[in-house]
């Protein structure tokens, strides 16, 4: 692999990311999948980096799931998006940052479609006015939250308490990065690093001391694919895609996987359990799985936040092997204690996959 070749491509796909004053829109599903991710993103951006980032309880789903499952027409999806833009405009912001990749893709697609078909934008403005008497400005910048963390990766590295380095041997940890499909495959120029060799996550991993693995099925889908998963009869396709990725990355012995999409970390995490039960196979060390994190969780770990405070106990694959390598201290007895040491109940343990 010729690293300079990738750097050359990255220089062609640098994205303009304003460094302050953001209107934040959350994901529908991430707070139940990875409850600490968005909270810690806000915390890092506000408290650690001191930026102005605003959110409102009035924002809703972007309509992406319904749109991609063909249950609502595009115009409806666009009207929902227009309403988010209206909330942003009302709050006095021009830069929109989305937590979810599907939303990010949806916002980009909507804006690009309006650029091509202004009459559609006019119609959506009319719909929105009729539905809720709101008006909006199209955001000046649309970014994904991982773009922001990428932009501030060096600031985070400068404040790092722990690095992506084996604290005993000093060797860099081997990181698999997985980008959500709708991050840059639809619009390569809207993703940092483009679509073939995106560097939004690899840039973070490298800035924080890790070594990024490029394995043959790197570009392959995580397996979510909306209809592949949501329809039970198709779920085998979802699983097979994830399985293919794990088989491909296994020889590289990754220490962890980082992702920037709501669906990917969920499937890469939970399917390891299902594969272990079906096939008796695990991909991590000594019967463990490969820990899967969102980039916000990884940033928070690097900055020294407590793993249980950020909800890492909700992951299927135990994070302990990664925490041990990074040298992050944790109290095993507090794993299933929530806020204010409240019992959050212990899950049953899988038969094959070692989880702690």
């Amino acid at each position, binding site marked *: 692999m*010729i690293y300079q*070749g990738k750097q050359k*491509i990255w220089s062609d796909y640098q994205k303009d990311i304003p460094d302050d004053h953001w209107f934040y829109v959350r994901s529908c599903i991430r707070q139940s999948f990875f409850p600490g991710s968005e909270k810690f993103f806000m915390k890092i951006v506000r408290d650690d980096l001191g930026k102005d980032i605003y959110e409102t309880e009035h924002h809703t789903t972007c309509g992406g799931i319904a749109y991609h499952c063909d249950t609502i027409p595009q115009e409806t999806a666009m009207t929902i998006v227009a309403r988010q833009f209206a909330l942003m405009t009302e709050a006095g912001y021009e830069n929109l940052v989305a937590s979810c990749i599907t939303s990010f893709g949806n916002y980009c697609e909507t804006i690009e479609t309006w650029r091509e078909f202004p009459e559609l934008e006019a119609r959506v403005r009319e719909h929105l006015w009729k539905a809720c008497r709101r008006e909006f400005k199209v955001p000046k910048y649309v970014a994904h939250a991982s773009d922001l963390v990428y932009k501030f990766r060096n600031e985070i590295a400068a404040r790092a308490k722990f690095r992506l380095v084996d604290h005993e041997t000093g060797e860099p940890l081997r990181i698999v990065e997985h980008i959500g499909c709708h991050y840059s495959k639809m619009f390569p120029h809207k993703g940092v690093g*483009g*679509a*073939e060799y995106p560097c939004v996550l690899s840039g973070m991993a490298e800035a924080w001391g890790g070594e990024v693995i490029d394995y043959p099925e790197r570009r392959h889908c995580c397996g979510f694919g909306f209809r592949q998963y949501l329809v039970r009869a198709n779920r085998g396709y979802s699983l097979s895609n994830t399985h293919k990725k794990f088989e491909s990355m296994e020889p590289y012995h990754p220490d962890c996987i980082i992702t920037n999409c709501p669906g990917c970390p969920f499937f890469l995490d939970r399917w390891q359990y299902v594969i272990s039960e079906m096939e008796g196979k695990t991909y991590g060390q000594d019967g463990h799985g490969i820990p899967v994190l969102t980039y916000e969780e990884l940033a928070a770990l690097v900055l020294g936040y407590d793993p249980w405070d950020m909800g890492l106990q909700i992951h299927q694959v135990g994070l302990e092997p990664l925490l041990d390598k990074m040298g992050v201290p944790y109290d095993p007895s507090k794993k299933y204690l929530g806020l204010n040491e409240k019992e959050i109940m212990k899950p049953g343990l899988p038969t094959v996959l070692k989880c702690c």
Partner: protein
Amino acid sequence: MTMDRKIVIIGGGIAGMETAACLRDLGWTPVIVEQSSALGGHVAEWNCLFPDLAPAGKLVDSLRAKVEGIEIHLDTVIAAINYLRKGYSLVLSDGTKLQSDAVVFATGFSLFRAEKKEEYGYGIYDHVISNKDLELWFNTGSDERVPDNPKAVGFVHCVGSRDIKAGNTQCSKVCCITAIKQAIEFKEKFPKAEVYCFYMDLRLFGRKYEDFYIHAQKDMGIHFIRGRVSEVSETIDGRVFVKAEDTLSGKPLRVSLDLLVLMAGIVCNRDNDRLAQAVSLPLDEDGFFRSRDNVSQLTLSDKPGVFFAGTCTGPKTIPETLAEARSAALAVNEYLKTLK
């Protein structure tokens, strides 16, 4: 009629040299302006030529011999061209001023930059090279990317050609036969290697080309897979991993290779915009120069005294280029004879 009329030929590749040699034979005074430091163009970098595997160097040498004694400006580009009442006035990048009665564009083509097809990983994966790199390797034997003892090698046809998203709708015409030539040469060097050609269509239009194809199939055992390579990655041991569809069986196909050769296509010369603007000539949508007529007047432009020779008007083989160069010389000859 004065026979000392001057013709400036822009480009010292095979088209430029052949045009110049013919014009001198016809009694005129050609001048060659070449931007690089040597005559020969793309062909000078090639090893040998389809379909008889004749050495490219021999052809270039014979053309260089034919233009000996002709005024040649190397390392020089055209800075300005002005149409005056009595022909063209040219200023060269070294400050030389030339008066000419006619100008022949023999500006050739550019080879598609293979790294633009990002999914093929040229310049990123250790064992991905271009057709041109392979010719250089045939010439020099030195290229770290070509492994010592390859067991499997693949050739990807139509890299950047017939590809609207790459900005090129045209068929590059010579790559199918070049891939077969290179596959045969490679197989001759490494008889134990499996050689795969990934193609969309095989366009083997020229005399002996089809025989060359049958030879590749029957005697060399080269495998032809109908399906465009969709994506390339690298395996843990640094080999090239290729995904394509075997469209004849309708199944996805995977193979790992020791070397992947990208058949970068002929695209319009990257300088065409600048050159065309200098003489206010229109370019076609594909960026090549527009002939007055695509059937019978390929060498004529819409401007009096401006002519075309070779691949500046589209992908061509070497014999076609040479024939067109002679045709352009005759067209110039006819034109000059009409001048008072």
